[in-house]
């Protein structure tokens, strides 16, 4: 998930380093053509003369630094964008779900998944023993980027979304593959005591494998899901997912209205974050 303190710090570190590298680049670019005779002028002249021999490699190094830190800051995205997205998701959560009296808000969630390629899922690179045929880090994945609320932020569930769209997993994967808004509700309640028939039904209706469901039997699974593709500059950037632990927790008509609003805002915000 993006909008947390670590990412904000990392973004500002990158921006600071980019500024330092940019200043160094300009200074050494000025020093490089200067004459040796400057040495006689003052202490500054002596300093410049001493630095001159290193000016060529320094220009290259600082130039590379500017590019590198700019790229890293671009990958992380400006923190204000993610803070704004988070605030919008909290508002959507208030309006898009049917709440019962006393029900905790984290039973209903709004999550933004980003479609990424190999290098972004560093955990999958490290856990190379989990690689399988067609499930490599470079296969194409939908990974969570932002989520409503202040809990369940350490989500590490990602879904396969490869070029061969038939193999896309989850409701999120189907929304991405078909480029359509998909709503699945009235899913069966799955627990550790559930029969294999119930597990199979849940897996089929949510487009995941039975093993995927079995691995999560100890945790509460959503009983209604809605996936909406999100576009930036005409390309599918990712998928917005609304999930609820209630079997009819999503107000489908309300979602259609909200999606119009969120779709416009995300399109503009994510363009800034790109």
């Amino acid at each position, binding site marked *: 998930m993006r909008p947390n303190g670590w990412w904000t710090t990392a973004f500002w570190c990158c921006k600071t380093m980019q500024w330092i590298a940019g200043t160094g680049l300009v200074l050494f670019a000025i020093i490089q053509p200067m004459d040796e005779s400057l040495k006689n002028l003052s202490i500054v002249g002596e300093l410049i003369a001493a630095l001159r021999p290193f000016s060529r490699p320094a220009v290259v190094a600082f130039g590379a630094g500017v590019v590198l830190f700019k790229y890293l800051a671009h990958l992380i995205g400006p923190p204000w964008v993610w803070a704004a997205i988070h605030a919008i998701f909290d508002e959507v959560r208030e309006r898009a779900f049917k709440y019962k009296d006393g029900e905790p808000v984290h039973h209903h969630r709004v999550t933004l998944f980003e479609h990424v390629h190999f290098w972004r899922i560093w955990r999958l690179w490290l856990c190379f023993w989990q690689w399988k045929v067609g499930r490599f880090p470079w296969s194409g994945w939908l990974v969570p980027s932002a989520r409503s609320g202040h809990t369940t932020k350490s989500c590490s569930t990602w879904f396969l979304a490869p070029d061969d769209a038939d193999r896309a997993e989850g409701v999120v994967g189907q929304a991405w593959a*078909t480029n*359509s*808004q998909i*709503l699945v509700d009235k899913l069966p309640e799955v627990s550790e005591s559930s029969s294999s028939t119930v597990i199979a039904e849940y897996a*089929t209706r949510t487009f995941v494998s039975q093993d995927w469901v079995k691995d999560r039997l100890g945790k509460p699974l959503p009983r209604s899901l809605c996936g909406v593709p999100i576009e930036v500059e005409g390309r599918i950037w990712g998928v917005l997912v609304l999930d609820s632990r209630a079997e009819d927790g999503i107000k*489908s008509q309300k979602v259609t209205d909200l999606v119009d609003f969120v779709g*416009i805002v995300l399109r503009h915000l994510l363009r800034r974050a790109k």
Partner: protein
Amino acid sequence: MSTWLRLNRHKMNRPLRRRIKGAEVTVFLSPYDVPEAVRGGVDMSTGRFTIQFKYLGCSEDPDEPLDAEAEDGPVVLRVGRNSHRLYRIELDTESLGVDRVEIRVLKAVDDAIDDLSKRRQRPPNRGRYDVTRQALVERGHDLVRELVGGV
């Protein structure tokens, strides 16, 4: 160009029950594929009568480059390079003879969109052209009135 004519997005994007990989789901078109408004008029830069669609979150101009389809024909379609969404329809009013037959124009546009929807797209999505057609059905006569008035 005329002012934008608003379209009823909810009416055009009705939920459908579909079976995907053996599972029953409710499907809506992507909110980005349903046009918000349409307008028509003579484009001063090309001199052609142009029907323009406005989509969710886009200003007057689309936020992606446009590619032309069937550029030599009387009906030129301009689609988004990334999304393949139909943004503009340009009509050669002289060869279509619009001052005589309104129906002929709408039929020519419909055929051009039909050709476009049959072509292979990525990502696959035929519904987006059906909804564009629906927009033309909804506002077609207003646009043709503009066309006949403008020629």
